[in-house]
């Protein structure tokens, strides 16, 4: 009964989404203000229906109802309860349902937060969100219904893909999707502004917290995925430039540009149409990410589905959504002229460089991700594009970005007078050079040409970001949340640059064949192989090794990596063992029985690799702090006439 109820709820949700879209967009357009009253109830009703559908599917998972095809494909009676719930988004159909649920949640949040917005504008925003939701619901019902029954039911399920049975991966999709879907709000605000034909500083102030919050979630989601790839895939890398990783990284890059361009639009009333374009682009890339991952067009560990019908539907949907938004843009954007000018060296110019460099970075990533598809379509052969392409091209645009950041945050709006901050920049640069060299040449000994550059830039960004809040704090001047958030996020970026530099420069990695009692060394550490024993879990068995790690004779850790075989899918998985010692991540992965009593083992030392994910978390916290600035919540309709650029210099 429950699956049918769920399906019925989804159909009702589709109808309500259609209502929300129609009344939200047509009401203000035709001047029928009475229609606007129908929008909010439609939002609420849709949210309840979507939540009901998700609840029904979760109930089917929890009660092991293997008459439901999706449950039978992705769960098993031996699967622990936690993963039975997480199996909801273990494959294509449920992931879409999760997408829709999160969109409904964001929409409710916008509806609740829109009490201060002009009613017509709010209706338009909700209407656009309704269009997005309608499209995804239609897609789910037409091509990817998670409630399809099996006749006869399967005696037991085929189990959740074992590499997905992991706590970090269980929460990775919801957080990543919260970010993806959150950009739908920025997109809806952009479309609503174009429909109104009006865009002012107040609009930017409404849009900023939503965009920054979505960005923070996306940052967390990407970091979680990277963390999972590090310890679960058994290779010990943190970023592979895998198409699916790129699919989430492109909206992040463009979203970061959007967050910065919104600052200019709010403070100075500039970059208006550019900001709109970025909002469209960011959400388009979020949807493209869903498309790339879910249509199975790219070879990737994440591509669960390989169904061309779905691909064509999403492609058509993308064309309608993106094409529609861009048409609206072409028609309306010329209305939104930016009047003010600025000098080279003013903050606006640095934010422009920021945007240009981020877009270049996103473009190179896009080119590398799509090249295999294009080459295949043009019959140029099957190609793959990997780190040798991505690493240098990405650095090429990121190095100037990082170098300009410190100067940019200390520049003034409008005026290109850099003299005011010359001394501060010089002092922080020298301090960064000293600290960076100390790190590179003192703690670690060798390195790459770019190692000192990376260390210098990382430290410089941290020091210069902290300078202004520290000065304010000393003078007992209040630090607004927006500035505090910016400081935290930029410091996080500095930490990220430092961590990436040390990891890329000083990683040690060996594959070794070891007999029981043998010892191998990597860096300052010695690894003794103490043999293997059998292990058994709730739905798998396997072998576990014991490896004693010492440094200069002193015990550091006893690591127990495992090789598991899951019963249902007969899939082998590698469970790496990780220990952190003095900032060094020691990773051991168990390979296979080589015969003659020897096993293959992978031993890896990655200095400061944990700081990569920590840095992402710091950046996300910065975003959350900035999004919570009361300035945004105080933005009332009456302020709409206040000219832009009357506030202080905080971005």
């Amino acid at each position: 009964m429950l699956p049918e109820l769920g399906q019925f709820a989804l159909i009702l949700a589709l109808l309500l989404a259609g209502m929300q879209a129609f009344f939200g967009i047509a009401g203000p357009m035709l001047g029928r203000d009475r229609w606007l009253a129908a929008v909010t109830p439609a939002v609420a009703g849709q949210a309840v229906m979507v939540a009901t559908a998700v609840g029904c599917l979760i109930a089917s998972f929890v009660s092991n109802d293997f008459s439901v095809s999706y449950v039978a494909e992705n769960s098993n009676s031996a699967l622990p309860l936690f993963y039975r719930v997480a199996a909801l988004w273990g494959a294509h159909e449920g992931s879409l349902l999760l997408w829709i649920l999160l969109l409904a949640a964001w929409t409710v949040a916008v509806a609740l937060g829109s009490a201060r917005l002009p009613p017509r504008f709010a209706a338009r925003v909700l209407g656009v969100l309704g269009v997005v939701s309608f499209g995804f619901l239609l897609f789910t019902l037409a091509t990817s219904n998670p409630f399809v029954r099996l006749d006869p039911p399967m005696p037991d399920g085929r189990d959740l893909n074992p590499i997905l049975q992991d706590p970090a991966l269980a929460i990775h999709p919801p957080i990543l999707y919260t970010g993806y879907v959150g950009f739908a709000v920025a997109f809806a605000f952009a479309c609503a502004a174009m429909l109104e034909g009006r865009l002012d500083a107040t609009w930017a102030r409404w849009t900023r917290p939503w965009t920054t919050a979505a960005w923070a979630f996306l940052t967390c989601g990407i970091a979680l995925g990277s963390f999972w790839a590090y310890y679960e895939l058994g290779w010990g890398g943190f970023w592979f430039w895998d198409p699916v990783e790129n699919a989430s990284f492109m909206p992040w890059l463009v979203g970061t540009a959007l967050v910065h361009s919104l600052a200019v639009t709010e403070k100075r009333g500039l970059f208006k149409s550019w900001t709109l374009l970025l909002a469209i682009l960011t959400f388009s890339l979020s949807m493209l990410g869903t498309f790339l991952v879910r249509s199975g067009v790219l070879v990737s560990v994440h591509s669960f589905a390989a169904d061309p019908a779905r691909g064509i539907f999403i492609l058509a949907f993308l064309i309608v959504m993106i094409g529609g938004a861009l048409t609206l843009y072409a028609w309306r954007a010329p209305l939104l002229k930016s009047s003010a000018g600025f000098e080279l060296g003013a903050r606006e110019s640095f934010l422009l460089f920021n945007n240009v460099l981020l877009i270049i970075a996103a473009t190179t990533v896009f080119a590398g991700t799509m090249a295999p598809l294009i080459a295949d379509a043009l019959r140029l052969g099957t190609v793959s594009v990997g780190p040798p392409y991505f690493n240098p091209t990405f650095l090429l645009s990121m190095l100037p970005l990082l170098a300009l950041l410190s100067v940019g945050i200390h520049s003034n709006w409008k005026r290109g007078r850099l003299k005011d901050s010359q001394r501060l920049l010089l002092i922080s640069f020298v301090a960064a050079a000293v600290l960076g060299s100390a790190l590179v040449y003192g703690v670690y000994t060798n390195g790459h040409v770019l190692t000192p550059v990376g260390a210098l830039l990382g430290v410089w960004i941290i020091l210069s970001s902290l300078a202004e809040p520290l000065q304010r704090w000393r003078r007992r001047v209040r630090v607004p949340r927006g500035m505090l958030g910016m400081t935290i996020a930029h410091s996080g970026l500095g930490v990220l640059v430092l961590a990436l530099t040390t990891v890329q420069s000083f990683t040690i990695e060996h594959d070794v064949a070891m007999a029981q009692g043998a010892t191998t060394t990597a860096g300052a550490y010695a690894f003794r192989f103490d043999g293997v024993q059998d292990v058994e879990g709730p739905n798998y068995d396997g072998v576990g090794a014991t490896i004693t790690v010492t440094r200069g004779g002193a015990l550091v850790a006893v690591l127990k990596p495992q090789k598991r075989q899951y019963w249902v899918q007969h899939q082998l998985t590698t469970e790496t063992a990780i220990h952190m010692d003095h900032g060094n991540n020691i990773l051991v992965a168990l390979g296979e029985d080589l015969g003659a009593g020897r096993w293959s083992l992978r031993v890896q030392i990655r200095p400061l690799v944990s700081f990569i994910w920590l840095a992402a978390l710091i950046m996300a916290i910065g975003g959350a702090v900035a999004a919570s600035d009361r300035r945004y919540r105080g933005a009332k309709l009456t302020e709409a006439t206040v000219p832009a650029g009357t506030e202080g210099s905080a971005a």
Partner: protein
Amino acid sequence: MTPRRRRMGLVIGIVAGVSIAGALALSAFRQNVTFFFDPSQVAAGQVPAGERFRLGGMVTKGTVQRAPGSLEVRFVVTDFAHDVPVSYSGVLPDLFREGAGVVAQGRLRADGTFVADEVLAKHDEKYMPPAVAKSLKRRHGEARSDPGS
């Protein structure tokens, strides 16, 4: 006129920067794209000499050989029309097994052995790497598995 001229300068600078970046990316592209070949293409001599490429096919059953206790492993990759012997030293991925699809990255040695420095099995259990599945279908009517199932 100065602000306008300054803005023009800015625009020109940006356009120049973008073009330089584009040119560099394009050259990075041409140097760093890895081509995929199947054993028949290798046998036909389509692989440029000394080039790093990806070899894809099935691991022939019963060909995985290893000197006991050594990381060195040898196996044969086939597309049912031609075979290529492969040698690799290191930890094999979890999804590597006889009779399953595999993609190896490396170079062809003069004696015709493919020396892999990386063995990938990044597909999941349900389907073959699409490139391999396509090549197998082309070479042999009864490809083991279709990519959609």
